[in-house]
């Protein structure tokens, strides 16, 4: 560690001090920069030289447990303690008691759920996220970074392709196409130059694993690109990344510049005679650009519209040349497979789904964050053991995977293994790894309307089934949520959805009806309740809600009274609240505000 040498000039008690503060997007939003500044200020106030402070307060990428941000490790004389939910005003006491006196502030340390969250995981990809400074290439090299690239460049490209094939690695972007096979096709395709594109256009609402990997360990992505580029014979790579990820773009730019300086990118990299360089292309806000051919059109500066396949990009891709497009996670896994071997990698996971998968677990779950588990782990273990169960201990209703292209897994299937085949079997998909947990306060009709309005909005408009079909489906769903549903609407949705899936041009249209079809399959009764009884069982659909206060559950705290924007709630101390139906605008503010679930 670079900090060790310099700290010798400081007071003996802080002979060896490292403070690691998470500065991912989650951490920064929770105020980690303020915490870092406060640490620096406090340490300086205690007579510790500024340059030491600068070196011992490390920024690290996301460690996944975003629910308890700001997280910070204090490593004092080799002993590490982790604090959670830090705010700047807590720093003073930590410096006084922990750093100067060696007594950690016990009540602020992470609890058992932090350990439970991490213990069940198998970290390959996320291993270094949260431990190394993503803006320091030496930190990456010190932990064995770029060894995979060195090893790969000493082999023949065909040997690497065989190794990746043997590892069983499948694309982590959604469809799960075998990576080795994709490379094989492209390496044999005629045409020069060839291109490698890293797809970092993580558009799925509810997924943020690619962002976190780039923010936490950008060099692993670059190293993976070097390996992939060498294997397929490409001398140039693009990273197509969403403009909505400014921090990730910034870290990637730093990483590319540093890698060039160290000779990992550019001409004759690592003195192997192989040239490889990488450029960043910022996306401009179109979900469809995650689709391979649309992504290529976008890099070429055109409207991001997909085209019919074949020819596949491996034969005719960017500028009409053979192109491989790999997802961030796929690329980031490669260096470890090269260094540790295909055998090791394929020993993890199930028969057809090898290795680990990163999931972003969000929604109504206690421990939101980023997790990495072996393929085939049961959904129950993910939701309850790692995720800690639903918020406020409410009942789990379903888990949505695969974003707007996927479907819902009802709570009754909680014991199913999570791998490519099992998810496809239940009408969902792996997708990029977003996992949104829903409890009994989530309305499934509203959810499918949400996803469909997303895909409808993002439909590029090129093919009719997707452009018009999704529009009609959305109209029907809107009608149902407004209490105007008709007899036969459900069957109409199924018929439309099935046809859109069969006739759309690209993956977006082919999967757009999935959320609707899967919720109809498992929650048909909820649709029927909306249409026939005029009730939204989860009390989400505004037009169908009628708010009342349960006199039994009401603790007379007055929170609903304060939350109500229209003055529709009458409340006095020691009296239960009453809602005036005339004045109520059905905004749901009281429902959200009630800590006792007394608003029905």
């Amino acid at each position, binding site marked *: 560690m670079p900090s060790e040498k310099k700290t010798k000039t400081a007071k003996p008690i802080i002979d060896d001090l490292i403070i690691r503060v998470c500065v991912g997007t989650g951490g920064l939003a929770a105020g980690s920069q303020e915490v870092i500044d406060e640490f620096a200020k406090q340490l300086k106030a205690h007579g510790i030289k500024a340059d030491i402070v600068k070196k011992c307060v490390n920024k690290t990428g996301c460690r996944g447990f975003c629910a308890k941000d700001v997280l910070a490790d204090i490593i004092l004389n080799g002993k590490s303690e982790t604090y959670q939910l830090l705010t700047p005003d807590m720093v003073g006491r930590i410096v006084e008691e922990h750093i100067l006196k060696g007594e950690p502030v016990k009540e602020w340390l992470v609890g058992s759920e932090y350990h439970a969250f991490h213990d069940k995981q198998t970290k390959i990809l996320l291993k270094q996220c949260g431990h190394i400074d993503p803006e320091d290439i030496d930190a990456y090299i010190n932990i064995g970074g770029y060894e995979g690239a060195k090893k790969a460049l000493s082999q023949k490209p065909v040997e690497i392709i065989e190794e990746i094939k043997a590892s069983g690695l499948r694309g982590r972007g959604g469809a799960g196409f075998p990576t080795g096979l994709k490379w094989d096709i492209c390496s044999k395709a005629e045409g020069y130059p060839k291109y490698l594109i890293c797809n970092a256009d993580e558009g*799925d*609402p509810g997924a943020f694993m690619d962002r976190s990997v780039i923010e936490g360990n950008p060099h692993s992505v670059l190293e993976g690109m070097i390996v992939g580029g060498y294997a397929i014979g490409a001398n140039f790579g693009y990273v197509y990344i969403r*403009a909505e990820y400014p921090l990730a773009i910034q870290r990637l730019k730093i990483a590319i510049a540093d890698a060039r300086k160290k000779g990992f990118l550019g001409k004759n990299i690592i003195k192997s005679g192989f040239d490889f360089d990488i450029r960043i*292309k910022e996306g401009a*806000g179109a979900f469809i650009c995650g689709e391979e051919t649309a992504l290529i059109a976008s890099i070429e500066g055109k409207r991001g519209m997909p085209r019919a396949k074949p020819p596949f990009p491996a034969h005719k891709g960017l500028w009409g040349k053979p192109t491989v497009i790999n997802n961030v996670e796929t690329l980031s896994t490669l260096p470890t497979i090269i260094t540790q071997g295909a055998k090791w990698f394929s020993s993890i996971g199930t028969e057809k789904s090898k290795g680990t998968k990163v999931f972003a677990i969000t929604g109504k779950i206690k421990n*939101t964050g980023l997790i990495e588990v072996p393929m085939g782990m049961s959904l129950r273990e993910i939701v309850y053991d790692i995720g800690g169960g639903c918020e406020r201990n409410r009942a789990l209703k379903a888990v949505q995977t695969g974003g707007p292209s996927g479907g819902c897994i009802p709570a009754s299937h909680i014991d199913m293994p999570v791998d490519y085949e099992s998810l496809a079997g239940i009408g969902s998909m792996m997708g990029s790894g977003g996992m949104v947990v829903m409890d009994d306060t*989530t309305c499934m009709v509203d959810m499918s309307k949400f996803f469909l309005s*997303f895909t409808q909005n993002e439909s590029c408009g090129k093919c009719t089934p997707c452009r018009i079909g999704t529009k009609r489906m959305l109209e029907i769903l809107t009608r149902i949520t407004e209490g105007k549903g008709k007899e036969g609407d459900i069957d109409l949705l199924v018929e439309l959805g099935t046809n859109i899936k069969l006739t759309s041009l690209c993956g977006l249209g082919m999967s757009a009806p999935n959320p609707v079809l899967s919720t109809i399959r498992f929650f048909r009764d909820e649709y029927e309740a909306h249409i026939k009884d005029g009730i939204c069982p989860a009390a989400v659909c505004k037009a169908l809600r009628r708010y009342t206060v349960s006199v039994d559950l009401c603790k007379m705290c007055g929170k609903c009274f304060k939350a109500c924007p229209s003055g529709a709630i009458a409340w006095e101390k020691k009296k239960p609240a009453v809602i005036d139906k005339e004045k109520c605008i059905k905004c749901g503010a009281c429902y959200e505000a009630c800590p006792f679930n007394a608003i029905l």
Partner: protein
Amino acid sequence: MTDKKCEQILEKYHKDKGSVISILQDIQESFGYIPEDAVFWFAERLNIPASSFFGAATFYAQFYLKPRGKNIITACCGTACHVKGSAPIINRVREDLKIPHGETTSSDGKFTVESVACVGACSIAPVFIGNKKVFGKMTMEKASEMIKELDKVKGV
């Protein structure tokens, strides 16, 4: 003034293939939106039809053909934010800022409220971005505070 800004952008990209989107991004960065004049300026010099620029500008959500408010509030409409109740908060913000129905900018030009599919910060949902600063775990009260904070910094 316009010419000078455009010259700088042209300098950066004139040799590259497929730079239409990058140029549009830079135009927007410089001007805050995509002025029609700027598009014709580039179309002429690069010998690319203006329709290619307008085609891309209208296709991608990121580009704006009209000037925007002084303060930009971006509401995340991702799944996690939706599940955690972002919709009522967005409505409240729009109401508080008196943004007319079907518009994104308040009539006094002080605020623009937009939505984005997902900012990838689902762990702190619901998320808002106010002038590039991320506000997580939003509630009705925090939204009002955010507006006050933004208004104070940039003012009228």
